[in-house]
């Protein structure tokens, strides 16, 4: 029976606490009286995931017929699936997407469907490479569809392959992938790692164009999402749901399949990462020392390579299929049951270690903009009710924050960092003065469409993702980061954790309350 998450009160006999630090980690002693929030332990995996998938397809939720009855010869079937940004780290084979897509294809083959196209719903993310697609959908699917060009990747900048559907009551344009829009049925295959994923966001965001996306990927929406991990209080989700309504009113049929994962994030040689420090065995301590010592000695590039080769032992804990909203309700419940930790009261200072990976740098470099997005966009927003840190409080993050960018994946990030952030870090100013130029830059458009680059506007979204946190926080301190890069982000660099706490006191006063977010794995704080 996995134990639920809990909040530890640090006392004198509490051992030092683990902090991620990019491609590495360290132990820091937290002041007595601090709190450390530990995630719930990973839930039990499904005994037979393949059988569970088949069962879900035959017993859909909400107002939906079993998938087999919706398939008929001569139909146009489109299977859309989540891209490389999920799950993190990429999971060991078989991936959930592979299991589900194979089950769907089994049914389609039996029903005699000939016209099947797979679309990677990557929105404005980078295209996936062949091996990455293979990892996600599995060899059988890849070999059957890729050579004939029926395994495609969504292109949000291809005017010939986008269909304008209409406007929501609030005047938001809905424009999605044409093949998907004109199909008799879209089967969307999702992996729900955090509560933000899934629902109408799958189709309305994953398959949308820039023109459509900008209605909810903007500063105003982000400031009105408290947080976007809680869909009932998230303007991001409300907008996506409105768009979903436009889609279904226009006759776009979506059969949504959502899978959930447990939080068994790292393989056994990194088991100590997910353990509570006082339960570390001799073996855990030895591996920690061995791993951290050797990471100190290998060059950063090599360390990055080692970490990005990790395949997570994530296991499927549930699968739901059918009508989008009904499915997503069940999925969200399940995600919450795995990830929710009740926490009493806010804190003056929130500390966290940032790992080497975020949704946008799989097999890539975690550049400073992504550091901001992971800390202020994701981890800060992993809350329900109210933020873990009080308004005007301080966020202390630990990450090396190197001034380094992946030249192929993140070309517009480099310009964003060199030009935009050198001018201002205010999301509203940035949106007003720079977004359009980057979004319409022909060069970025070219790289997004033909290379493996994120869209030109993507770094802006990363910055907007943190807009709520930027407005909420009194100060952000990065421990052990590249000083110039940290300053460019508008944050304060600190060389040690102790210094960072001293600096934080200047903002929140003496003897502040301190709370540490202990990750991995991910969890959501339910703050009362």
């Amino acid at each position, binding site marked *: 029976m996995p134990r639920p998450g809990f909040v530890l*009160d640090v006392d004198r*006999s509490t*051992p*030092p606490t683990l902090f991620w630090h990019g491609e590495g980690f360290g132990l820091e002693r937290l002041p007595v009286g601090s709190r450390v929030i530990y995630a719930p332990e990973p839930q039990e995996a499904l005994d037979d995931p393949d059988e569970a998938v088949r069962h879900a397809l035959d017993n859909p939720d909400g107002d939906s017929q079993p998938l087999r009855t919706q398939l008929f010869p001569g139909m146009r079937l489109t299977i859309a699936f989540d891209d490389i940004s999920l799950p993190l780290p990429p999971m060991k084979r078989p991936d959930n997407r592979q299991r589900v897509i194979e089950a769907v294809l089994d049914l389609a083959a039996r029903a005699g469907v000939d016209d099947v196209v797979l679309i990677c719903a990557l929105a404005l993310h980078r295209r996936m490479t062949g091996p990455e697609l293979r990892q996600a959908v599995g060899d059988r699917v890849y070999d059957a569809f890729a050579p004939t060009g029926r395994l495609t990747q969504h292109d949000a900048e291809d005017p010939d392959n986008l269909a304008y559907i209409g406007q929501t009551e609030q005047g938001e344009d809905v424009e999605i992938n044409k093949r998907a829009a004109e199909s008799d049925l879209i089967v969307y295959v999702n992996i729900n790692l955090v509560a933000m994923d899934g629902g109408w966001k799958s189709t309305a965001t994953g398959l949308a164009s820039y023109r459509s996306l900008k209605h909810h990927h903007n500063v105003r929406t982000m400031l009105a999402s408290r947080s976007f991990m809680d869909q009932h209080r998230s303007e991001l989700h409300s907008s996506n749901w409105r768009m979903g309504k436009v889609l279904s009113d226009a006759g776009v049929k979506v059969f949504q399949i959502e899978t959930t994962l447990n939080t068994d994030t790292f393989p056994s040689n990194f088991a100590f990462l997910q353990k*509570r420090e*006082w339960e570390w065995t001799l073996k855990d*301590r030895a591996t920690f*020392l061995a791993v951290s010592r050797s990471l100190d000695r290998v060059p950063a590039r090599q360390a990055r390579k080692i970490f990005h080769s990790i395949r997570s032992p994530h296991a499927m804990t549930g699968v739901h299929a059918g009508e989008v909203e009904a499915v997503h309700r069940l999925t969200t419940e399940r995600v919450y049951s795995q990830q929710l930790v009740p926490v009493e009261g806010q804190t003056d200072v929130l500390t966290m270690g940032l790992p080497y990976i975020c949704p946008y740098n799989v097999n890539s470099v975690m550049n400073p903009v992504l550091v901001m997005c992971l800390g202020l966009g994701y981890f800060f927003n992993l809350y329900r009710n109210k933020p873990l840190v009080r308004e005007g409080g301080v966020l202390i993050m630990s990450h090396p924050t190197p001034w380094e960018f992946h030249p192929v994946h993140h070309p517009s990030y480099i310009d964003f960092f060199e030009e935009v952030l050198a001018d201002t870090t205010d999301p509203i100013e940035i949106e007003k003065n720079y977004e359009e130029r980057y979004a319409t830059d022909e060069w970025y458009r070219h790289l997004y469409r033909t290379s493996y680059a994120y869209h030109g506007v993507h770094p802006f979204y990363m910055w907007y993702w943190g807009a709520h946190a930027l407005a909420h926080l009194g100060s952000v301190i990065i421990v052990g980061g590249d000083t110039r890069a940290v300053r460019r982000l508008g944050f304060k660099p600190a060389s040690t954790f102790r210094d960072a706490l001293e600096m934080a006191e200047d903002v929140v006063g003496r003897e502040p309350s301190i709370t540490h977010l202990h990750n991995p794995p991910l969890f959501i704080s339910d703050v009362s």
Partner: protein
Amino acid sequence: MPTPAAAKGLVRAVAVSPPTAPPVVRWAWRSARPRAKGFPWAAPTWPGGVARRAEKSTTGMEYDTAWARSYGVQLARAVVLDSVTRPVVRALADPTLEGIDRLDGLAGPVVFAANHASHADTPLLLTCLPSRFRHKLVVAAGADYFFDRRWKGHLSAFAINAIPIERVKISRRSAELPASLLADGWSLLIYPEGGRTADGWSQEHRGGAAYLATKIGVPVVPIYVEGTRRVLKKGVSIPMPASTTITFGRPIRASDGEDARRFAARIEHEVDVLADEHANGFWEARRHAAKGTTPSLRGPEHAAGWRRAWELGEGRRPAHRGPAWPPR
């Protein structure tokens, strides 16, 4: 050659006063001095606010002895048995074997059931059993005594190929391991009394040996060991040389319809007969057995403890033939 005073000074310099010691000594001090290193070099301390979780036990019945039955360990044990245990046993106990011919033609697996007076019983029997049994033999040892610490468990498992059993009651779990080993062809040495005698008289046989033998369908060889109490009786830690005798009985099997409890009583009786045979000779023992007057090893039931002890000295053949060494 440094003078004693100089040597003393050096010691003091190393031990006490590094700043004033010569550089070489200071260097040695710095590199040899144990450094106070906390977590993760040392084990973590436990936060006050967190309840401790019951740890999975690895001692007692939960001690896993499988490693001790691997080929390499068996080989090592055989070497130790022949080159260390056997000479020690010879020097201390010099056992006389009686009735060893009764085992001719018997093949394992077998349950050896012996009376138990001393820690010396096991090494004695291990060195005296025919080699076809000796190297494929496990010894049932009290989990509460031989396996209560991990190091004791390691030692017992290695030295005598012990397996943990519960001595007080026979539970299904306690019987599982020996049963499966018997089924695998291992012989078992067990002391059905469940422990060493405190006063010299035996205790009632418990059902374990009989249960296992009936369950797996293997023969039981009753054994009477005499004299080991003089070598090393309970409560004594230094062994004294004394002569010993081991009397093997005919292998017996449970007859049809005989339950474990009755079979256990029969095993006890057979051991009594062997004791009688050892004391009064084969013929007398047979006659006593036929008449049902075999003296019980459990001794007379007297209210006062001293009379039991008294009779222990009276009723038996004066077995003390003096130590085997030094020779008279």
